[in-house]
């Protein structure tokens, strides 16, 4: 029987390949990395310039989100179809942003204060 055995679990019940086609990174290392990035995010927020804070925390959020996607959700080992699905969601977001941007920037604050 073909099996994939994550290290340290060889004594347990063998896993059929079709149920376990993805890799098993060291989840503890990923978790600790996420905590370190989280700590950096919190400390970065102490910088007095909001735009700089925004850029730093947004970039770190993208890195953290990608780590969860790639390693905890095993996206790294998924076929291209799953990547296309997520790509479509991102494209929807891009079109939404492009569509909404003119509306949001063109609304004058007085229109909001005096509806």
């Amino acid at each position: 029987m073909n099996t994939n055995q994550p290290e340290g679990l060889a004594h347990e019940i063998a896993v059929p390949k079709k149920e376990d086609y993805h890799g098993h990174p060291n989840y503890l290392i990923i978790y600790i990395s996420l905590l370190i990035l989280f700590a950096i995010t919190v400390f970065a927020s102490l910088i007095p310039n909001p735009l700089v804070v925004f850029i730093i925390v947004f970039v770190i959020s993208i890195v953290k989100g990608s780590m969860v996607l790639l390693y905890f959700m095993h996206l790294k080992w998924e076929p291209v179809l799953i990547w296309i699905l997520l790509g479509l969601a991102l494209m929807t977001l891009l079109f939404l942003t492009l569509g909404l941007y003119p509306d949001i920037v063109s609304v004058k604050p007085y229109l909001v204060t005096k509806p």
Partner: protein
Amino acid sequence: MNTKITWREIPQARLAMWALIAGEFAIFGGLIVMYTLNRLKYESWGEMAQHTNVIAGTINTLVLLTSSFFVVKAHEAALHKNKEKVKMWIWLTLICALLFLGIKSYEYYHEILHGFTLPGTQLLAEGKHVETMYWSFYYTMTGLHGLHVIGGALALFFVMRHATKTEKDYHRIEVAGLYWHMVDIVWIFLFPLIYLIH
């Protein structure tokens, strides 16, 4: 060790969950994009953000990150049909979910007490219409996220109970776990945007 599979071999449940997750990313992403564009436009939103409880948000972020680790350990145990470990990791995740919701409720209680509500009646009376929009976004995004936390926790509970009772369908732990990780990713973006950028 891992094996590459083709798209035809993707387990149906996992494919369906990924499709759902893609939709969820579009929904939450849309909210985040709109929030960000408005936040960059209205400086007074920064003042409103100062009224959020950063300590509570920080603890909640730690709780969700930790719960994601617990879920992936539950998935690992489920692959080996280790009933006891599956139970242990899922129960730890559920405790994290309850803790998250408890802390969020505490935050809501104090914010509402200070007049920061979804309709923003008090702020509107003061003529602060732009500031009211901040709290509308705040409650919509965090409230919708909270509902997903509840949904994810219930899904994890039921698949865990079914798998451990019947000794089958352990793969559902991973599928429900994918949903839980999605909830975590959404919070990874919400936390700094809402709490940290003043």
